């Protein structure tokens, strides 16, 4: 470094603002140059003279008080009026309570919605299992008959209700028999129909409610399920038959 370069950086050196490399270069030059070293010494003296003698004006006590007051006023203005409504003590717990109440209602509603279909879900699952079992163990029918007048009387004395038995062979769904089964905690009637090589199990038992309910659809493990209530009876039809044909079947049963 020459003297001009040193002069450029000598205040940065004084203030300790130079990186290590530059500081060392300045130091080396100051060791060699009396003029620059003198300038640096003069700067050191000047700096301490200023630091030791320059008055530092502390905030007067009155100003501090005034500022504190203004701050609290500004703060109060900021908090009014729109926000003050929310700052009112009573509203806050009320809002919290309302939020909790709403949450409770929502949780209850969701839970209720979940439990309501879950009975149907369980039942649908049970029906599918029964359907599969009926096909597997070759226990499709207790009374193998294509004659509704044979099947219907067969249930007499075995159930506390009399299921309607329709022969739908003219419409492509041939009755092949009936059987007794145990579902949903009770004895139920099962009518077995066939469409081509697809079997349909039609489960019938007295409904809890008398009101008719339209057909609802479900699919379980690749089986289609139809469920409806008619004339105080609950009907579940299950098959691997396609949905459209199964619905056609259900409508035929209903009429």
């Amino acid at each position, binding site marked *: 470094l020459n003297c001009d370069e040193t002069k450029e950086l000598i205040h940065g050196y004084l203030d300790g*603002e130079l990186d290590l490399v530059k500081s060392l270069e300045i130091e080396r030059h100051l060791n060699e140059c009396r003029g620059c070293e003198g300038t640096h010494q003069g700067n050191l003296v000047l700096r301490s003279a200023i630091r030791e*003698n320059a*008055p530092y004006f502390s905030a007067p006590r009155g*100003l501090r008080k005034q500022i504190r007051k203004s701050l609290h006023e500004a703060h109060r203005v900021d908090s009014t009026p729109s926000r003050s409504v929310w700052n009112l003590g009573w509203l806050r717990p009320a809002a919290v309570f309302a939020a909790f109440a709403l949450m409770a209602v929502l949780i209850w509603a969701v839970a209720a919605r979940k439990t309501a279909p879950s009975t149907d879900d369980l039942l649908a699952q049970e029906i599918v299992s029964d359907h599969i079992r009926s096909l597997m163990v070759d226990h499709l029918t207790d009374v193998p008959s294509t004659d509704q007048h044979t099947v219907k009387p067969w249930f007499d004395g075995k159930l506390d209700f009399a299921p309607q038995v329709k022969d739908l062979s003219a419409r492509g769904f041939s009755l092949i028999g009936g059987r007794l089964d145990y579902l949903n905690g009770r004895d139920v009637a099962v009518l077995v129909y066939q469409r081509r090589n697809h079997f349909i199990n039609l489960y019938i038992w007295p409904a809890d409610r008398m009101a008719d309910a339209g057909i609802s659809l479900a699919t379980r493990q690749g089986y289609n399920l139809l469920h409806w209530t008619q004339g105080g009876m609950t009907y579940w039809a299950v098959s691997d038959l396609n949905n459209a044909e199964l619905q056609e079947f259900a409508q035929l049963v209903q009429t």
Partner: protein
Amino acid sequence: VEQQNRLASFEEAVIPHLDAAYNLARWLTRNDADAEDVAQEATLRAFRFFGGFHGGDGRAWFLTIVRNTCYTWLQNNRSREVSFSIDEQTADIESKVPSPEATLIQSVNREMVRHSIEELPLEYREVIVLRELEGLSYKEISAISEIPIGTVMSRLARARERLRQCLESQMHVEV
């Protein structure tokens, strides 16, 4: 609760630097009453903008607002002082060969130093106060005064040279 916290955290982060704020305002306005006005206004402005303070150095943040408030105030009340802008290029540092005065400066008094600083142009006074009285780094001064770090160093160099000359002339009068 949030509002309460805002005032509390402001009092915690900013109010401890009220002395620094007043000191800067006092040096820039060179007057007690004006410094109080500016410090008060700057504090309220800082409180209003406190949402923009994301922790860190409360002093540098506060001093930036104080400095801007000072300049606005001077512009409105003493525009002549502000419009007298220093010329960074021509005000070349006339570094004198170390003289006997360098040692004489050791015997300056408070009144002489105060007078010398007050005589400095606004921009020089500002960097001297921030550097020598607040002990701020070039980087902090650069942020507060909104000038590059290189300019901080050159302004300090020129400000010190002027201080030296001013003090030496007073010494001569004294001697």
